[in-house]
C-alpha cells in the first residue's frame, strides 16, 4: 500500500482509529510493557489530534456545534468555577493573614492575595475543576455515542466526526478556560478581601489599589492565558478517550475516568512547564 493509501486508510473509521492507528511496533520486544503502552498512547493521541486539526481547519465549519459547546463548557461551568475560586480566596486569605502577621508584613496582604490567586491558584484550580466537570462530560458523552454506534452513524452520513464532535469541543475548551479563570480570580479576590475585611477594616478600593500596585500586564496576562493550553489538554484527552471507546457501560465508565484522571494529571504537568516558560519569556 502506498503512503497516500496508508494515510487515507488511516483517515477512515473514527471510532476504530485510536485503537488501530498505531499497533505495537517491533520495539515492544525489548521495551517493558507499560513503556510500550505509554508510547502507543502518545502516538495515537498525536494521530488523533492531527486528524482533528486537519478536519477542523477545513470547511464546512461547525459553528452551531461550537456555540453549543461554548455554552456547555463555559456558561455551565461558571458557577462551579466561581464557587471553587471563592473557597480558594477564603483559604489563601486566612493562611496569608496569619503568615504575614507572623513576619510582620501585614501590609503585603493585598499583593500576596492578588499574586497568589492570579498567578498560581486561579489558573490551576480552574483547570482542575473544568477537567473534572467538562472532561468527564465530554468523555462519557462521546464514549456513549461510540458504543451505541452513533459516531459510526455520523460517519456513514458523510459527516466527519472529527470536525463535528472533536474540533468544536476542543476549541470551546481552549476559548473558555481563560475566561473561566478570570471568573475564578475575581471570585477569589472578592471573597479573600471579604475574609480580611471581616477581621480588619479594609475598603475594596484600597485592597485593589495595594494589590495591583506596580503590577504590569506581563505579570497577569500570561498566567491567565496559559489556561488555554489546559483547555487544549482537557478537550483533546476527553475527545480522544471518548471517541475510541469500546466495551459497553464499562467502557463508558473507563473513558470518563481516564478523561478526568489523565486530563488533571497533564494539566498539573503542563503547569510545571508553562510556569518555567512564562518566567523565562516574561521575566
Amino acid at each position, binding site marked *: 500500500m502506498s503512503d497516500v493509501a496508508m494515510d487515507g486508510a488511516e483517515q477512515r*473509521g473514527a471510532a476504530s482509529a485510536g485503537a488501530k492507528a498505531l499497533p505495537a511496533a517491533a520495539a515492544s520486544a525489548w521495551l517493558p510493557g507499560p513503556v510500550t503502552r505509554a508510547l502507543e498512547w502518545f502516538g495515537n493521541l498525536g494521530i488523533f489530534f492531527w486528524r482533528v486539526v486537519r478536519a477542523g481547519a477545513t470547511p464546512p465549519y461547525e459553528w452551531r456545534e461550537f456555540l453549543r459547546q461554548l455554552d456547555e463548557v463555559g456558561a455551565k461551568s461558571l458557577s462551579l468555577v466561581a464557587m471553587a475560586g471563592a473557597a480558594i480566596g477564603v483559604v489563601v486569605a486566612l493562611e496569608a493573614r496569619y503568615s504575614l502577621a507572623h513576619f510582620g508584613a501585614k501590609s503585603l496582604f493585598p499583593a500576596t492575595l492578588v499574586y497568589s490567586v492570579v498567578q498560581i491558584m486561579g489558573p490551576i484550580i480552574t483547570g482542575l475543576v473544568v477537567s473534572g466537570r467538562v472532561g468527564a462530560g465530554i468523555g462519557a458523552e462521546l464514549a456513549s455515542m461510540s458504543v451505541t454506534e452513533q459516531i459510526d452513524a455520523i460517519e456513514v452520513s458523510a459527516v466527519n466526526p472529527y470536525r463535528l464532535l472533536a474540533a468544536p469541543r476542543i476549541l470551546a475548551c481552549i476559548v473558555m478556560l481563560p475566561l473561566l479563570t478570570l471568573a475564578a480570580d475575581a471570585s477569589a479576590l472578592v471573597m479573600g478581601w471579604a475574609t480580611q475585611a471581616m477581621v480588619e477594616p479594609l475598603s475594596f478600593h484600597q485592597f485593589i489599589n495595594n494589590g495591583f500596585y506596580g503590577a504590569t500586564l506581563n505579570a497577569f496576562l500570561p498566567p491567565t492565558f496559559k489556561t488555554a493550553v489546559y483547555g487544549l489538554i482537557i478537550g483533546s484527552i476527553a475527545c480522544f478517550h471518548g471517541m475510541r471507546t469500546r466495551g459497553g457501560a464499562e467502557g463508558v465508565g473507563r473513558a470518563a475516568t481516564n478523561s478526568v484522571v489523565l486530563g488533571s494529571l497533564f494539566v498539573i504537568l503542563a503547569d510545571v512547564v508553562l510556569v518555567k516558560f512564562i518566567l523565562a519569556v516574561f521575566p
Partner: protein
Amino acid sequence: MTAPIAERDLKKSEVESPAAVAIDQVHQSFGEHCVLDGVTLKVKRGETLAVLGRSGTGKSVLLRIVIGLQNPDAGTIRIQGQDLNGLTMDQMGEIRKRMGFLFQHAALYDSLTVEDNVAFPLLHHRREMSAAERRDRVHSLLTEVGIQGNLSKMPSDLSGGMQKRVGLARALALDPEILLLDEPTAGLDPIGSGEIDDLILKLKKERHMSSIVVTHDMHSAKTIADRLALLDKGHVVIEGTFDDLKQSDNEFVGLFLKQS
C-alpha cells in the same frame, strides 16, 4: 472533443465493472481469528443481495468494510467502479452521500428527536434547503417508511421496529443509490419483520436502489433478495438464487436451509 480524464476513467471502469458494489478478495482478521478469508461478491445496479450466515461469521464486518467504517487487512472494495483504498475521510464522505446504511440497532442519535435524526444528513449536505423544505422532506421520508405523528419523540420512546423505520428514513434522506442493511429484521416479532420486509420491497420497486442485506433470517432474505450469498468460516459457500441454494448438495447449505 475529448472527455476529461476523470470522466473517461469512470466510463472505462463502468464498462469493465458495471457492479454497484464489487467486493474482491477481502480478508479480515481480529488477532488470530480470521473472520473473512478472501470474500468476493458483486452487486449489480438495482439488485438486492442478501448475505446470510451463522452469528459471528463476519457478515456485519463485511458491511462495515463496504461503507468504509473498517479497513480490510487485504482486498479491494469498489463502489460504482471507484476503489475505496486510499481515500481520505472527506473523499469517502463523497461516496457515502450515494449510500445509505441501516444499523442493526438503528444507531439513532439519542439526544435528537425523530425529526432531527432524519433531518441530520439534510442539515449537513443540503444546506441550500430552507427549514420548511427540510421539514417537508423529513415528513415525506417518515411517511414513506410508515411513521406519522411521532416527530417530536425521542428515540428511547420508540419501539425497536419504529427505531428501525426511523433509521431507514435517515438512510434514505440523501436519495442513495446503494442501500446497506444490517440485520433489518433482527429482534422484531414476525409481524414487525414482515412489515420491514414489505417496506424494503416497496423501496426497491420505487427507488431502484442496489442493496446488500445482511441477515440470518432466511425467510426475510428469500422475500427481499434477488440473490443470496451464504458465508461460513470466512468463505462464500454458495452464491445464487434461492432455488440455487435449494438445489445445492453442499452439506452446510442443506443444514442452514433445514434449520431456517
